[in-house]
């Protein structure tokens, strides 16, 4: 089966290089092209890896990008790797910050409602698995495995790039992604939920 690509990806594969150059030259349209192409993937990645405030982490990521954009050297592929490396660092920072915050018994106001749910058989008949469902399922994996899948499948980075980002080897990344996807395919997650 041919790989499915979104509209943005299909359109932008050909012009992300141009958009990058234009953005570096100060062109707003160029920047928006980059942002529209990569922000959705970035958000999906951060919804797996970025804790409870993926939008904030994404915003921090772009802030650093626009600040350092002119000094960036490379093509669109390099830019994608740069973007997700920054996002990963910002997410780690955000996680440390969260860990220092006091916890309280509070009712969630609904921010999780749209993020974490599992599809019923009825839904799978009515509609394909949604991206939200898939992201929720991905979060049931151990963090290291979820990160590999997020970078390889969501961020669409190649194996070698993922290995560089997480400090592993391409072989280990390939095996890790396969193992994770096989686990998910066999039953939507490892033994995250156990009946006592």
């Amino acid at each position, binding site marked *: 089966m041919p*790989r*499915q690509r*979104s*509209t943005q990806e*299909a*359109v932008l594969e*050909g*012009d992300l290089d*141009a*958009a990058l*150059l*234009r953005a*570096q*030259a*100060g062109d707003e349209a160029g*920047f928006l092209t980059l*942002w529209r192409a990569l*922000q*959705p993937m970035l958000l*999906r990645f951060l919804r797996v890896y970025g804790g409870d405030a993926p*939008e904030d982490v994404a*915003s921090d990521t*772009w802030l650093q990008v*626009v600040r350092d954009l002119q*000094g960036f*050297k490379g093509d669109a592929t390099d830019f994608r790797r740069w973007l997700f490396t920054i996002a990963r660092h910002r997410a780690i920072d955000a996680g440390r910050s969260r860990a220092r915050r006091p916890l309280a*018994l*509070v*009712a*969630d*106001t*609904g921010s*999780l*409602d*749209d993020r974490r*749910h*599992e599809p*019923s058989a*009825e*839904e799978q008949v*009515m*509609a*394909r698995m*949604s*991206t939200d*469902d*898939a992201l929720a399922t991905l979060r049931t994996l151990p963090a290291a495995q979820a990160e590999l*899948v997020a970078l390889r*499948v*969501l961020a*669409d*980075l190649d194996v070698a790039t993922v290995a560089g980002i997480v400090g592993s080897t391409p072989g280990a990344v*390939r095996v890790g*992604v396969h193992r994770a*996807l096989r686990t*998910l*395919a066999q039953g939507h997650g490892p033994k*995250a*939920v*156990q009946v006592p």
Partner: protein
Amino acid sequence: MSDDDLTPFLDDPLVQALRAPVQEHELAGEDAALSMFRQSLPARRRRRAITRAGVTGAGIILGLGLSGGVAAAYTTDALPDPVQNAVHAALDPLPLPAPPTAHARHLRQVARAERRAERAAARVATHPPSPPARSGPRPSRTPAAVVPPVQSNTQPRPSASPTPAAPKPSMTVAVSAARVPVHGQVVLAGRLTRGTEPLPGHTIYAAELPAGESTWRRVSSGQTGSDGTISLTVPPLTRNVRLRLVTAQGLVSRQVAVVVVPKLTATSARSGNERVVTIHADGGRPGDELVLLRRDGTAWTRIASSSLASDSTGQFVVPGPGAAPVHYLVRLVATARHTASLVQFAVPAR
């Protein structure tokens, strides 16, 4: 990127869902991003303007020389741009921002890349299709994947060769969201055409089939505009539905499914050393199952279940504050009428 290593999984619904087309809400925040970008611009624009002065800048740099102070100021963007030009030339091997002297080359690269992009864009199907860039014969290309409006079942598939027969009317449909919070609304948009000709002034109905029912009912209506398009808002949804557009003459679009996410809220009350947590499920029904899970390390352990009472609430009793905070999650199990929903809470440490 090569997908060779993912080939065994490309049919997996999960992988497909992870790579699903972009949803509108994922592009929220564009204005803020653009604002950030604009704020980063002035320095670059100033530099480009001065670069055009060219020779004058080169003269200035001869007078200034390359002192350590100049080199340091270079890294802070504090020097006049012509000075930076020359410093860049001297420090080019260093991983510093691209020098303005490369600007002309950069613009040429932009132009070349834009031309490549235009050629790439021409290969991507858009609607309406863009006219060919040149009149001579060109090898046909298969349009790249786009997100097409959902086609009516009655619409003939596009053919590579012209079809002389008069086409039948057809109606596309798209829904603004496939998943909405309870009481949320969606908009059904469609276009009524005969071949490529829009059909304006036709009455179109939005029809819904709620989960658990077997009869379609019309919920809103309107007339197609001059371009044949129609946009109808569906009343607030409280359970899963299938939706479609219907013409007065009986032409029916394809169905689209929308699932409803109940809203869970949690409140707590002290009861001795314990906490009584009450879950209210807006969009749930009496008898729906609630599951309480506790986070143990990286795993969630199911520790109790309950069901919604007639007032759409359920209760759990959890231990009060202990030596460490404890995280809990309550899940409303999906039914045919709604999708699953979650609410999280934590009992803090003493």
